[in-house]
């Protein structure tokens, strides 16, 4: 493991791929690796791309990479697709639209299934961001599954969040889920070659204006990803947002909050795993379930009883 970490820090792409697999598989050995890597992180800028399925996220990432490379920056891409909740299998197809940079040594694209984390941006994604960061990528772009919790989760890990929408057609923008309006630092109306674009842009702007004055007013940018139109302006907006975060000290604040969250998550994770390990080893858990079913025990007292049995030092 030591060796793998050394190789990663020296820029070995095979080591990068292997380490991402390690966190994806929740391999026990990652406990040796992640603490080692952490002090090499904190340099990469993280961009989250979210939005409904098929809105053009992958195509936009592909085009954004052009701007990124023109500015002589390197980028890791994490493209998340849903896993089947029944078999756990997945078809990860985001690469199809990311072929422009398939051979570019400054770009590394990794597809991930959501696996157990239905909808949520998993722990593995967060750890993969850290691995890219330690590897030395200037940017990490995360394309999330555009449904449910992950749309909101992305804000926790991204410095700039881009929400991709499409012309609403007959529908009004009002039908967009409320949460989405809150998380976007930049809104993109992609497929601007379709009718209804102007109206969608105008409605989004009206909604954003209602949010009142802030130091950053999220811009609404039409793009045609397949032709690369509007992508330069999108990249400029990302850079402007980054500049604002940096100059206003908000980036520090955001990252402090992230550090706080990571520490809390890790704490909960450790305590939870510890408790489950003890309980599995020592307590006839299923017996308790049967008692609760028979109403001779209730889950409230049951939980206390289990903790007592593993000598968990509960306060009185």
């Amino acid at each position, binding site marked *: 493991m030591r060796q793998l970490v050394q190789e990663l820090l020296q820029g070995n792409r095979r080591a990068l791929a292997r380490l991402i697999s390690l966190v994806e*598989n929740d391999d026990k050995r990652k406990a040796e690796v992640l603490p080692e890597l952490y002090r090499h992180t904190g340099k990469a800028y993280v961009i989250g791309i979210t939005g409904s399925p098929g809105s053009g996220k992958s195509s936009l990432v592909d085009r954004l990479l052009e701007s990124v490379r023109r500015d002589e920056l390197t980028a890791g891409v994490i493209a998340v697709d849903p896993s089947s909740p029944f078999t756990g*299998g997945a078809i*990860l197809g985001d*690469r199809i639209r990311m*072929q422009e940079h398939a051979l570019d040594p400054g770009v590394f*694209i*990794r597809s991930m299934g959501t*696996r157990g984390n239905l909808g949520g941006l998993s722990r593995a994604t967060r750890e993969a961001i850290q691995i890219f960061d330690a590897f030395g990528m200037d940017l990490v772009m995360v394309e999330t599954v555009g449904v449910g919790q992950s749309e909101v989760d992305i804000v926790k890990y991204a410095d700039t969040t881009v929400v991709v929408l499409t012309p609403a057609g007959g529908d009004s923008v009002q039908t967009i889920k409320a949460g989405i309006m809150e998380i976007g630092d930049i809104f993109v109306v992609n497929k601007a070659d379709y009718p209804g674009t102007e109206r969608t842009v105008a409605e989004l702007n009206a909604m954003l204006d209602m949010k009142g004055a802030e130091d950053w007013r999220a811009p609404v940018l039409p793009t045609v990803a397949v032709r690369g139109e509007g992508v330069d302006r999108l990249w400029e907006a990302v850079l402007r947002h980054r500049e604002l975060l940096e100059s206003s000290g908000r980036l520090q604040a955001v990252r402090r909050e992230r550090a706080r969250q990571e520490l809390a998550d890790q704490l909960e994770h450790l305590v939870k795993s510890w408790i489950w390990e003890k309980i599995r080893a020592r307590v006839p858990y299923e017996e308790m379930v049967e008692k609760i079913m028979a109403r001779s025990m209730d889950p409230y007292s049951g939980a206390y009883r289990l903790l007592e049995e593993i000598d968990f030092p509960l306060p009185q």
Partner: protein
Amino acid sequence: MREKRIRVLIAKPGLDGHDRGAKVVARALRDAGMEVIYTGLHQTPEQVVEAALQEDVDVVGLSILSGAHMTLVPRVRELLRENQAGEIPVLVGGIIPEEDARELKEKGYADAIFTPGSSLEAIVACVRDLAGSK
């Protein structure tokens, strides 16, 4: 708890534009619980190998209907070796005459070959086998 999942690259190197077969196989592998990285049409061997490395796959599956298998398959194997990834098994699906298939296997370019009409069960079992042997 997450667990190790078999990851398979399904790629279509070369110029032919038919990916129906590749998609059917991709779906069967997904339904068997695997993660299938699908890269689309017209891939060069360089693109295939780079994707295999970045995605850290257990098996590379190549769908070739263009007749160019005798150049494409050896090239993919060669590039894998050049990248210290020669151990990744390569499975080929397509219209491959018997004597070509024998040669590709004997020379170690392909680990398994399936021609049209092969059962999906057999392909899934073979991928699982190859992934285990890596």
